[in-house]
C-alpha cells in the first residue's frame, strides 16, 4: 500500500497509509472500530476505489490480475454469499470465473469442515458456518496472499483454534496472511507481526514481540508488608509507581528499573520483600496504550 487514502465525503477513513505486508508470516491488523481496517482491505481487493494512492497485490492492482482469485483470497464479510444458493454452487461459480478446477471446491469444503452441508442453502447457515464458507472462498484459488477480516467472529472455541492452526500453517507455507481481529489474546497467539492503525493513520508496523516490549516498559511488581518504608526510596531513584490492583494494598507496580536494582534497594534499606516479579504486558495492554488517543467510537476520559 502506498499513500493509500480514502475519503467518504469530508470524513477521511484511511489517510496516507503506506505499508507492506510480507509473505511467510501472519500479519495482524489492529485498530479501534472505525479505524479504517475494513476499508483498507476492501481497497486492496478492488471493491472500493482509493481517493488517492494505491494498493497493490503482488505488485499490481487487484483488478489487473488475470486470475485474481488465484493470486489473492479474502474473507471480508460473512454476508458474501446469496442465501438461496448452496455452498457448493457458490464456490463452483467462483471457481469457473477464474479457471479453477472443480476439485478445488471439494477440497476447500473439506478443509473448512463444510463438506457434509455443501448442498444446503447458505441461508440456513449459522454465522460460524458462513465464516467457514468465506474462508473456503478465500482459499479456493490456492492464493499466495490471504486477507481475513474478523474471521474469528462467530466461530466456536474449537473453530477459533482450528483457524489459528490453519492461518499459521498457511504462513508457514510461505503465504502472506493479513488478518484483522478484535480479540487481542487471539492475535497474540496467531500473529508474528502487527500493523496498528487509528483514525485511518498508521500507528505501528512492527514485530509483535517489540510492540509488547514497548508497551510493557519493564513493569516490576513488589509486594511487601512495609511498603510505606520503601516508597520514598523508590521515588528517590526516579522510578514512577502506580498501585497494583487486587492485592490488599501491600503491592505496587514500579515502572522502569530492573529487578536487581529494585531488589538491592529494598535490601539496603532493610525492607522485607515478599514478591518481586517482572510483569510482561500483554498485546492488549500495549495496544490500548498505542491507540488511547485515536479511539473513534468509544468513551473517552473526561478531560
Amino acid at each position: 500500500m502506498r499513500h493509500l487514502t480514502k475519503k467518504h465525503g469530508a470524513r477521511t477513513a484511511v489517510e496516507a497509509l503506506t505499508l507492506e505486508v510480507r509473505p511467510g508470516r501472519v500479519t495482524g491488523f489492529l485498530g479501534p472500530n472505525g479505524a479504517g481496517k475494513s476499508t483498507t482491505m476492501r481497497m486492496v481487493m478492488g471493491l472500493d476505489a482509493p481517493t488517492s494512492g494505491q494498493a497493490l497485490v503482488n505488485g499490481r492492482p487487484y483488478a489487473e490480475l488475470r486470475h485474481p482469485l488465484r493470486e489473492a483470497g479474502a474473507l471480508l464479510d460473512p454476508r458474501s454469499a446469496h442465501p438461496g444458493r448452496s455452498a457448493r454452487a457458490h464456490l463452483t461459480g467462483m471457481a469457473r470465473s477464474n479457471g479453477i478446477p472443480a476439485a478445488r471446491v471439494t477440497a476447500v469444503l473439506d478443509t473448512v469442515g463444510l463438506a457434509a452441508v455443501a448442498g444446503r442453502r447458505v441461508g440456513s447457515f449459522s454465522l460460524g458456518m458462513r465464516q467457514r464458507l468465506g474462508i473456503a472462498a478465500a482459499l479456493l484459488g490456492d492464493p499466495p496472499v490471504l486477507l481475513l477480516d474478523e474471521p474469528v467472529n462467530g466461530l466456536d472455541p474449537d473453530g477459533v483454534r482450528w483457524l489459528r492452526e490453519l492461518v499459521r500453517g498457511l504462513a508457514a507455507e510461505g503465504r502472506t496472511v493479513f488478518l484483522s481481529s478484535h480479540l487481542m489474546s487471539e492475535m497474540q497467539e496467531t500473529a508474528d507481526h502487527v500493523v496498528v492503525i487509528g483514525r485511518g493513520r498508521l500507528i505501528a508496523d512492527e514485530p509483535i514481540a517489540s510492540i509488547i516490549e514497548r508497551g510493557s516498559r519493564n513493569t516490576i511488581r513488589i509486594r511487601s508488608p512495609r511498603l510505606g518504608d520503601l516508597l520514598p526510596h523508590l521515588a528517590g531513584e526516579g522510578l514512577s509507581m502506580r498501585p497494583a490492583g487486587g492485592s490488599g494494598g501491600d503491592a505496587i507496580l514500579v515502572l522502569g528499573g530492573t529487578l536487581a536494582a529494585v531488589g538491592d534497594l529494598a535490601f539496603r534499606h532493610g525492607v522485607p520483600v515478599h514478591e518481586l516479579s517482572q510483569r510482561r504486558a500483554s498485546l492488549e495492554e500495549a495496544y490500548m496504550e498505542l491507540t488511547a488517543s485515536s479511539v473513534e467510537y468509544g468513551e473517552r476520559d473526561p478531560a
Partner: protein
Amino acid sequence: MRGAIAFEWTKLWSVRSTWWSLAAAGLLTAAASVVVGMSAFASAENGFDTARPAPHAVADALMVAQLAVVVLATLAVTGEYASGSIRTTLQSVPVRWRLLLGKAAVAAAVAAALGVLLGILGTACAAPVMREYGEFTAADAAVAAAGAGGYLAALALLSTGIGTMLRSAAGAITGLVLLQLAVPQLLRAIGARWLESVADHLPSSAGVVLITRDHEPYGAGIAIAVLLAWSVAALAAGYVVLRARDA
C-alpha cells in the same frame, strides 16, 4: 470473458427465483394467449374485423409475460447487492465491464431462448381458440417466435442495465414496469402527436413491431435499432454507476 459468463451462468441457475420466473413466464404467456385469442374470436363472431394470424396474439400476451424477464434479469443484479454476494462477484471478476457484459450476455441468451419458446407456446395456445379468425402461415409463427426472442433479449439487457444502475430490486422493477406498461398508455392517452411518436419509440412498441412485422409505425430494421439503443443506453448507465460507486 468466458470465465465471467460461466460464473454468471452458474449463479443464475443456482437460485430458485430463476426457475420461478421462467415458470411464471410460461404460465402467463399461455393464459394471456388464450384470453387474447378468445377475445379476438368473440369479437370476430360479432362482426368486428379482429381476424389476424394467431402468432400475433403472442405480442399482446408478452406484454404481461415480459414482467417475468424483467424480474429474472433485474434480480440477477440486485439480488447480489441485497445478499452481499456482490463482494464475492467483484473479487472473482474485478473488471467492471467484464462483469457487466457477462451478466448481460447470460441474461440476454436465456431471455432469447425463452422468447422463442414463449412465441411457440403462445401461438399454440391462441390458435385453437381463434379458429378460422386466427389462420396463419408457418412463416408468421417463425417470425413471431424469433421476434419474441429478440424482444425479450433486449428487455433482459435493459433490465440488467437498470438493475446495475439502481441496485435495488424494488426501484428497478417498478421503473421497468412503468416504462413498459404505464408510460406508453399515458403518452397515447394525452393525444399529442409528438408524444405518440415518443410512445412509438419505447421498447414495448418496438417489440410489437418485431413480433408482428406490422410495418406500423416502422419496419423491423428500425425496431431492432430502437431496442438496441435502449439496451445500450441502459447498460452504459449501469456501467457508469458500477465503475464510479464503491460496491
